[in-house]
């Protein structure tokens, strides 16, 4: 957290410690730089990326990055609010190439675009699929 504050305190919107997990909320257009700063601070391993749809709230989506430090044996979560319409954030694949599939999955299931991703295509659903299944306005069962 100290590293993020030193890097750019303005991009840090919120910090919360809940159930032993530290969550830092980062401004959407700063996520790549924030990841680079956190990585430099020792959180060397990208674990997970996913989104939550808070429809009909605004901002609608919230991305959640789980980052792990092998050395500190600690985990940190970066949370990024993303607005409708045309949700998009910077891709963090230049920082961690391993985020590639995870970003594709979020794109596939939530329709959030990642700018600068090398191959932003659907990954789990068929290429010609219409709609984004994990959005809350997408039905759980039945025909579309």
């Amino acid at each position, binding site marked *: 957290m100290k590293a993020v504050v030193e890097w750019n305190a303005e991009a840090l919107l919120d910090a919360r410690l809940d159930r032993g997990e530290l969550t830092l909320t980062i401004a959407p257009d700063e996520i790549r730089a924030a990841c680079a700063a956190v990585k430099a601070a020792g959180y060397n391993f990208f674990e997970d990326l996913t989104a939550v749809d808070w429809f009909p709230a605004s901002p609608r989506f919230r991305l959640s990055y*789980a980052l792990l430090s092998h050395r500190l044996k600690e985990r940190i*979560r970066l949370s990024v609010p993303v607005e409708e319409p045309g949700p998009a954030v910077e891709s963090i694949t230049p920082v961690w190439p391993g985020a590639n599939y*995870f970003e594709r999955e979020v794109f596939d299931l939530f329709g959030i675009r990642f700018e600068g991703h090398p191959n932003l295509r659907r990954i789990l659903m068929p290429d010609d699929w219409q709609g984004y299944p994990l959005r809350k306005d997408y039905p759980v069962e039945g025909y579309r």
Partner: protein
Amino acid sequence: MAGSAGTPILEAPVAEGASDQHMVLNMGPQHPSTHGVLRLVLEIDGEIVVRVYPEIGYLHTGIEKTCEAKFYQQVVPLTDRIDYLSPMANNLCYCLAVEKLLELEIPEKAQWIRVLLSELTRLNSHLVWLGTHAMDIGALTVFLYTFREREEIQRLFEAVSGQRMMTSYFRIGGLAMEPPLDYFDRIQAFIRTFPEKIDEYSNLLTGNPIFINRLKGVGLLSAEDAIALGVTGPPLRASGVDFDLRRDLPYSSYEKFQFAVPTSTVGDTWARYEVRLVEMRESVKMIQQALDGMPEGAIKADAPKIVLPDREKMKTQMEALIHHFKIVTEGFAVPAGEVYQAIESPRGQMGYYVVSDGTAKPYRVHMRNPSFATLQAIETMCKGRLLADVVAVIGSIDIVLGEIDR
């Protein structure tokens, strides 16, 4: 999932500047050595692999979406189906995540049984890996040996949960039921002979010149690449990164167990083979420790509004009957919040991200599965190598398509 009606087999372009000699080869999804329905689109120059392009999603069933429509306790059986070779690991990870949301304390005995069965699951999963990996390489015999022991483990699972594969034995707040009376004796009998069985597999493979030649120096992955690509578990440790969640971020009483974390600095498929073999021996030690030190006590947390009451109590006490009825029909509300819980599954780091909005159904459940991330490293490992090595590499990273596609 390219290749559905009307789309060409491969839209990914051949690498720029590639000679006309390059050819695109489709491997899978129906291929015996892709361990499920993995499809690899390979760009090859003669026998040399230039690019590997995995196409996944053939087993996608939308489990994460389904979870959002179920009560918290109804999600447990769904988690079995994700990584069907290590159901207990999935159960454990999900239960730990929800228990963290509820801030629920689990009795020590339940925690120890969870460790015991998680390690049995690891053996179970590694046995399938070893059998199929060796079979891919051409050593058919090993498969018959490992499945002989796997059968024993599945009988142990059946004895405790009633199911061989989809166990759903770990529940939110503890375990489903008490293990049978002679259960620990049966496990003891199994692990008494199991180390000899590992020697048996090792005798068949470790000195086998064909096996050595197919594995040594194949599928090299450096520690930097492994970390950058999100590789976890045995492949990460075989690349020289000494990190194991059981030891470094312990959960479910793992801090009370003594075990070594095998690593290797070579980073090839042979190193992964050796690391997993040692891991099996360490698991046996941990099972022994769990049996020796098994604490007494309850197997369910004292939380009547979350944990289903005993049958006996339900039939005799009004309170218990009401709680039972409420839990089954309305579920139980979980305080709002978000948690991420990671465990060391047989394949690597498995994480469950659970978001609650304060109701009885999870607002969002996301699974971070080790195979999904590890698959990204396949191109790094196969590039510039022979086509036949791809089979060895797939075997060595031990992927399960169920958890990749979910």
